[in-house]
């Protein structure tokens, strides 16, 4: 068995994840600020403790926007082989999944509004157990991957 699948996602994936990370970070930061404000005005605590919520929220925000996207991108790999799709992903827990072509029922590409702006696309393929995704591929690559899976699914069924 091969060490790792060969293909990577599009490098713009990092930018997209930074953007979605920022969107997630905003409410977290707001929550942190609110927490600190509440501590400073309401509770009878040591002054240096009041900054803790803001610092915590800031740490999470930095993680979401700056740290995670490149790490996730480096880990995410895929490979379309004649008999199966090989996926590897995950940051702390690394997951490897193999989906036999003969079990794939149909394939889609999907694009959200942010993805459309960046020219990215997600390939979704379904088995009887549910969907599997290869996110953030360049639009052209995504179309190729989709067509290739569809093609291979057909030949795998004939086997």
């Amino acid at each position, binding site marked *: *068995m091969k060490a790792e699948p060969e293909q990577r996602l599009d490098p713009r994936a990092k930018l997209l994840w930074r953007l979605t990370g920022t969107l997630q970070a905003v409410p977290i930061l707001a929550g942190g600020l609110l927490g600190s404000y509440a501590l400073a005005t309401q509770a009878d605590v040591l002054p240096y403790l009041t900054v803790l919520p803001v610092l915590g929220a800031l740490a999470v925000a930095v993680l979401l926007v700056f740290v995670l996207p490149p790490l996730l991108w480096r880990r995410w790999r895929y490979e379309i082989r004649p*008999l*199966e799709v090989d*996926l590897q992903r*995950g940051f*702390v*827990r*690394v*997951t*490897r*999944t*193999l*989906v*036999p*072509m*003969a*079990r794939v029922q149909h394939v889609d590409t999907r694009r959200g509004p942010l993805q459309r702006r960046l020219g990215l696309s997600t390939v979704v393929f379904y*088995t*009887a*157990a*549910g969907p*599997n995704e290869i996110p953030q591929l360049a639009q052209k690559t995504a179309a190729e991957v989709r067509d290739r899976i569809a093609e291979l699914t057909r030949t*795998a069924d004939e*086997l």
Partner: protein
Amino acid sequence: MSFSTPDGSEERRIHPAGMLLAALGTVRRWIGLAAFPGIAALFNGQFGMQTLFLVLLAAALLALLSAVWGVLSWRATTYRVAGGAFHLKRGVIQKSERSLPLDRIQSVDTVRGVVQRLFGVIEVRIEAAGGGGEPEISLPALSRSAVQTLREELTSGRRASPKIPEEPAPTVLRRLSVRDLFLAGLTSGQIGIAASVVFGAWQTVNELLPSNLVERVSESILPRAFSTALLFVFAVVLFAWAFAVLGTVLAHAGFTLSRSADGKYLYIMRGLLERHEATIPLARIQAIKAVEGILRQPFGLAMLRVESAGYGTEEGVSTILFPLLPRKEVEELLRLAVPRFATSLDNLEPLPLRARRRYAFRAALPVLLISALAVFFFFWGLFAFLFVLPAALYGLFRYHVAGYGLDGDQLILRFRRLARMTVIVPRRRLQSRGYSVSPFQKRLGLATFEIEVASGSGGAAFRLADVGAETAEGLIEDLSDRSGRLSAQGSST
């Protein structure tokens, strides 16, 4: 009860008992509303003539409206089989018409509830294959002959060949004996749930009755002594146990598993007051689970379940194949009922020794964290640490059970989630396979092996934590379609 349509097929209505069933259904849905003024009055402590009148009025109104609704919805519901599909029209205000192609029909099950038995009618449930979240069709009341006709129409459309005039009777594979029925109830492990129900009921009664009455009753039953309090707890447990037995008896009395003559379908008949008849097409079975509950394993008893695709959207994802049988006889029954899944449940490979501490640690960690938190808040939280050791022991207990095996085309996984579970999946039923590695596992060269099978309208995943990393990779390789074909060729030459 029927009239012709342009294409010659008949539009049929369900049995008039359907009116009553629809009305009862409506009553059941809205009864809370009728009872509402009464409950409100009870809580306010003023239950006079006025509230009684209100309750009666609401009840009468509800009964009347339900009856009208029952008649209307009965009139609006018609079905027919035409053009290779089953058609159902229904809806009083919002009309709907559903068509289900006959080749998509997965099974035709029948249920006879108490009310249905009173009128000698049968509820028919038609299950569709796949199609994610599409609800099954239910015809609440059909006469015996109508069921017969419908069954023939539905199955004759499915079989391309001319209909066989008299289908040979299915062979009975196994019946649940009365002794095993009670044994199943006693060991069902639902005592906990039943106990909480009993206790909850007691508390509700406590709140509803005038307080001095409860006090007087409980004083006469419960003298202050500690021993009698213990007796009380004992009584609750006993009562709950009886409850659990009753539930099992109602659900599984006369459980009979049989197989059609052509070997393509399994039939399950069960139930005391409500007779259930279910059909499971063998081709749709994805995985078999042998479940040995905590109370059953010591006696060598197990329950068999099937994971079946596009089935049981209502009853959760898996169906009981047989409620209780000796573990030794599991293999035999599998060979008779689902030959493709027949394999020995023993001779599994154990996990590597280095996985032991991972299991102990994984079980103990949440308890440790909770204990630490408890100590942080109050001193007596220290006692929480007493539970760390039992938790770790439970982890070891899980480790010793865990194992895997590959018997020809069958993958066998065993793990413990309180009950000991053994899952059998043929290679061709694996929708995906893989493994995941956490940083802790990486250090020890371990991985969590994961598979997915189709189940219901979605999927079910099974995981085996802490197999050797090289074992996980080996299993994944051995389970590929490629090696499957090679071994098939090897055996054919």
